[in-house]
C-alpha cells in the first residue's frame, strides 16, 4: 500500500485518485506510525517550506519518514515534497528541511513571470529510471516560485528550462522527487506515477 502523507494542508485528492485510477493501492495517512506498513511513501507539498515542515513536525512525521526511507522504502516527493528533501530554503530562512539530500532551495530571480505556472518540458538524463514510456522532452505541469539547487549534481534526474536550466526531477537511491505535478500532467504524468508505484513492493 502506497501511503500519501496528509499533514493537514493540501488537497491530496488528485494524487490519491491518480494512483487509484492506475489500479495501484494507495491511502491517505495522517498518523506517522502508519508509515511502518507503507510499501511506498508520497509527500505531496502545498504551501510554504517552513509551514509544511512545522506541520510535519507537529504530527511527528519527519523522524519516522527518515527512518523508513533509510530502510529502503521508496519515497516520492512532489513539488514542495521534493524541496523538503533538501537542507534549507530561501522561502523560510532558518528552517531545516528533511536534509536527506545536500543542497538548498532558491527563488527564481529575474524579470519574468513568477511563479512559473503551466506546462514545461523535462529533459530526463540518459538511462534515467522511472521514465519508461515517457517520450523525449514531454511536458509536465508546474506551479512554483522556488527551485532546488542540489549540492551534488549526480542526484539530477531531469532538468527544465525556465529562463535558464534548473533541476526539475531528482533521484538518489530510493528517493525520487518531481518539481512538477505528475497528478496534473495527464497521461505522461500518470505514466510516471505508474512506473514509480509499480516499483513499490506490495
Amino acid at each position, binding site marked *: 500500500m502506497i501511503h500519501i502523507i496528509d499533514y493537514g494542508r493540501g488537497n491530496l485528492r488528485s494524487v490519491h485518485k491518480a494512483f487509484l485510477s492506475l489500479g495501484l493501492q494507495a491511502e491517505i495517512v495522517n498518523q506517522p506510525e502508519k508509515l511502518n506498513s507503507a510499501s511506498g511513501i508520497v509527500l505531496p507539498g502545498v504551501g*510554504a517550506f517552513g509551514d509544511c515542515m512545522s506541520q510535519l513536525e507537529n504530527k511527528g512525521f519527519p523522524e519516522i519518514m527518515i527512518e523508513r526511507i533509510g530502510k529502503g522504502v521508496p519515497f516520492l516527493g512532489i513539488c514542495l515534497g521534493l524541496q523538503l528533501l533538501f537542507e534549507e530554503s530561501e522561502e523560510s530562512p532558518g528552517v531545516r528541511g528533511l536534509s536527506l539530500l545536500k543542497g538548498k532551495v532558491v527563488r527564481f530571480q529575474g524579470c519574468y*513571470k513568477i511563479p512559473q505556472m503551466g506546462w514545461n518540458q523535462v529533459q530526463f538524463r540518459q538511462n534515467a529510471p522511472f521514465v519508461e514510456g515517457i517520450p523525449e522532452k514531454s511536458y509536465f505541469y508546474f506551479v512554483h516560485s522556488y527551485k532546488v539547487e542540489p549540492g551534488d549534481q549526480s542526484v539530477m534526474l531531469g532538468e527544465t528550462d525556465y529562463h535558464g536550466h534548473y533541476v526539475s526531477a531528482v533521484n538518489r537511491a530510493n528517493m525520487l522527487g518531481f518539481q512538477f505535478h505528475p497528478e496534473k500532467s495527464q497521461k505522461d504524468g500518470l505514466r510516471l506515477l505508474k512506473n514509480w508505484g509499480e516499483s513499490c513492493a506490495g
Partner: protein
Amino acid sequence: MLAKRIIPCLDVKDGRVVKGINFVDIRDAGDPVDCAKEYDRQGADELVFLDITASSDKRDIILSVVGRTADEVFMPLTVGGGIRNMDDIRKILLSGADKVSVNTAAVNQPELVNKGAEQFGSQCIVVAVDVKRKNPMHPEEGWEVYTHGGRTNTRKDALEWIKEVCLRGAGELLITSMDCDGTKKGYDIPLYETVSKLVSVPVIASGGAGTIEHMADVLKKGKADAVLAASIFHYNEMTVNEVKTALKNKGIEVRL
C-alpha cells in the same frame, strides 16, 4: 520553454453544461465530466468551470461536479462563479479544484484575495476582472472594472485594480474584455499588452477569439500567457489540438 496554455471554459448551470456544446463523440454533451474528458483527450492544458447556477440551494451541485471531474481528469481545474467567502473557496478546493477564480467577491471584499492567498497559497487564487474601455476608440484612456457578469460598472480603474489584487496576493489574472467578448473580432490587444507590462503573475486572455490569428496575436503582441475560449471549441469548430497545431505553425510555443 514554458508553453502558452489553451484553456477551454465550460459554463455550468445546476450541474449541467449550458451554451450548447456540440461534440460529436461524447456520450452526454450536457455532462461536465464527459466534456472535461473530451477536452482532456484533445490536449487542453487546463479547464475552467464557470458556475452560473442562480439559485442558492443548488450551489453545492458544482462541488460534486468538480469532484467527479477531478477523479477522472488529471489536469489543472479552475472553478469560478458565485464564490463569496472563504468557506466557498475551501469547499471548492477540497472537492478537487486546483484554483478558484473570484470576480465580484474580490471587488466587494478585497481582503478575500489576501485571506485566500495566505491560507491556500497564491497559486490557488485567480482574480477574474471584466473590463470595458472608458472610450471605445481610445485605449489610452484606460479601462473600467465591471462586476455581476458585466452588469455593474464599479467605476474602478482596471489597471489600478489589477495592481491592487496582485499586491493582495492574486496568483493569476483572468482578464475579459467586454468590448470584445462575443464579437469574434479579436482580443483587445492594447489591454493585454498594458497588463502584461504591469504585473508579474500570469495573464489569461478572454473575449474576442474568432480565429487562430486572434489567439496568436494576443499571445505574441499581447504577451498573454494563456487564452481562455469557449465557443470556438464547444461548437466543434476546431478541436483544442487543431488550435494548438495551428498556433505552433505560427511559431508559438504550445504543448502538443
